[in-house]
């Protein structure tokens, strides 16, 4: 030991701080995530091009064929739905980056470093949360371009964006779970298309559930994507935000129902996700 250190300049000996390094390490890994987002714009398409495309497609192609219950402009109705859909899709980003890390050995590299292992997951979560802000901004802007408007108060709008961020945070844990259970990025894409895509469509995202056949209608009414969309419509004072008199509980109380789901997802999915993640790295 003494022979090796004598051959090296004293200044290059690492100074190891003994205090907990969780916050610091999480931030270093989150910063790596930000750089990835910036340098890989094509991987962001689900958060950038796709929502803008949906805004334009539904506003101009399908919009004319869909009538809004209680009247009002379809473009105003549409935006709450597209926000909700994009937020639900937000779980993909973290799932893809986790499974990519696992497949290219990056996770092994990090786990051979003297950092708390939880900081790797936390770093992914932090960068994913920031990543989810980008589509919210882009959709807000493209909404304004097609003629969407926020008609409620400033505080209500603030509450709407707060709800979106909260639900984005919840969806990250769905993403961690997905990224840990599914072996490859291709598999994640497959599940996204087979499961998440229909979930965001069998909802009040693009059409009023009243127009759906009975079974689908019930699914749509209890789907949190619907309640999130309805909450946003309600807070933005857009059409579709006011529940009809005989509505089921989730439709009548969209904000409460959405909050229950957000908390429920975190409480159920976060521990499951951490367990699945730990199992996925152990083999």
């Amino acid at each position, binding site marked *: *030991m*003494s*022979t*090796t250190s004598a*051959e*090296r300049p004293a200044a*290059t*000996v*690492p*100074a*190891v*701080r003994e205090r907990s*390094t969780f916050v*610091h*390490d999480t931030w*270093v*890994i989150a*910063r*790596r995530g930000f*750089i*990835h987002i910036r*340098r*890989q714009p094509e991987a962001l398409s689900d958060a950038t091009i796709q929502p803008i495309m949906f805004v334009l497609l539904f506003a101009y192609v399908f919009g004319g064929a869909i009538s809004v219950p209680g009247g009002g402009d379809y473009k105003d109705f549409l935006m709450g739905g597209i926000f909700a859909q994009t937020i639900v899709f937000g779980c993909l980003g973290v799932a893809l980056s986790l499974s990519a890390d696992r497949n*290219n*050995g*990056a996770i*092994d*590299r*990090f*786990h*051979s*470093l*003297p*950092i708390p292992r939880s900081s790797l997951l936390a770093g992914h979560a932090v960068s994913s949360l920031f990543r989810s802000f980008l589509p919210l901004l882009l959709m807000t802007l493209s909404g304004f371009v097609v003629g969407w408007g926020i008609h409620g108060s400033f505080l209500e709008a603030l509450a709407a964006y707060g709800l979106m961020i909260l639900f984005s945070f919840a969806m990250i844990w769905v993403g961690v779970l997905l990224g840990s259970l599914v072996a490859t990025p291709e598999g994640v894409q497959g599940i996204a298309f087979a499961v998440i895509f229909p979930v965001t469509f069998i909802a009040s995202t693009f059409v009023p559930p009243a127009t759906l056949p009975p079974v689908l209608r019930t699914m749509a009414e209890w789907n949190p994507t619907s309640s999130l969309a309805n909450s946003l419509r309600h807070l933005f004072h857009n059409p579709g935000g006011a529940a009809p008199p005989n509505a089921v509980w989730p439709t009548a109380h969209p904000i409460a129902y959405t909050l229950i789901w957000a908390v429920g997802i975190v409480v159920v999915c976060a521990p499951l996700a951490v367990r699945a993640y730990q199992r996925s*790295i*152990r*083999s």
Partner: protein
Amino acid sequence: MSTAPAIEAHGLVKRYGEATALAGVDLDVPTGAVCALLGPNGAGKTTAVRILTTLTPADGGTARVAGYDVSTDAVAVRRSLGLAAQDATVDGLLNGRENLVMIGELHHLGRKRAKARAEELLEQFSLTDAADRLAKQYSGGMRRRLDLAATLVNEPKVLYLDEPTTGLDPRARNELWGVLDVLVAGGATVLLTTQYLEEAERLADDIVVVDHGRVIARGDARELKRQVGGDQLHVVVNDLADLPRAAELMSSVAGVAATVDQSERAVTAPAAGGVRDIAALAGLLVEQGIAVEDVGLRQPTLDEAFLTLTGQPSEEAG
């Protein structure tokens, strides 16, 4: 120099469901030594490395690295080690410098020290000119060098190299061997895994041959060859058509059947009688008018040693 073992493992066992990856492996690597784990694919080499780097818990046995127990003192172990995994795990979306600075920060060097250390390593591995390019644009050899630099950020007491030259062309491989020579000369303790006998012989003081999760032989290259048997008669003929006759002559001299290698135009057999056998064989070959390229006594190659020890050629994945 201290002779305390840098790596000390006893009875390591690892199972994946029904399959046993390690069935009781002992390892002792003295400080400053280079040890090669040699074996075919699936022999358990990578599993051993994963246990010794705290990436995977063992199902049985104990291991200490740099004096720390891998199961109870994992963070101290990780602080002491550098791991270059099988696939160079550099981050393709970061440039060379950012890769090294990030690792330095995660070793808690502090941002300033991490940056300075990154520059030192870029210089040492001839990557200064490429420091600002994204790692995904690097050649295979450059990625390996960056990966190796990343494993040295914390000046590890113990360095693990899991198949360091797999997938490299011969030039990049020679380059990497040169880098490893310098590290070893600097006193690093190295555990490397390899499927290439040539690599184990070139780099390691001690070779541990593993197969099916067990150590089947250990020693330096010379000792391993000796385990397989002594000197051999070796003849390479000019004309392939002479090969059967040469084999016949050799068998008669050696007293056992000679081994024929068509592709090398060679026959070999144990040379119990030493030089006397050579002389007798040479006389017979001249008498019969068989033109030869090479006649001599030689030690078995490590490939032959491997074949004898594992029952399969080293190239064949197990």
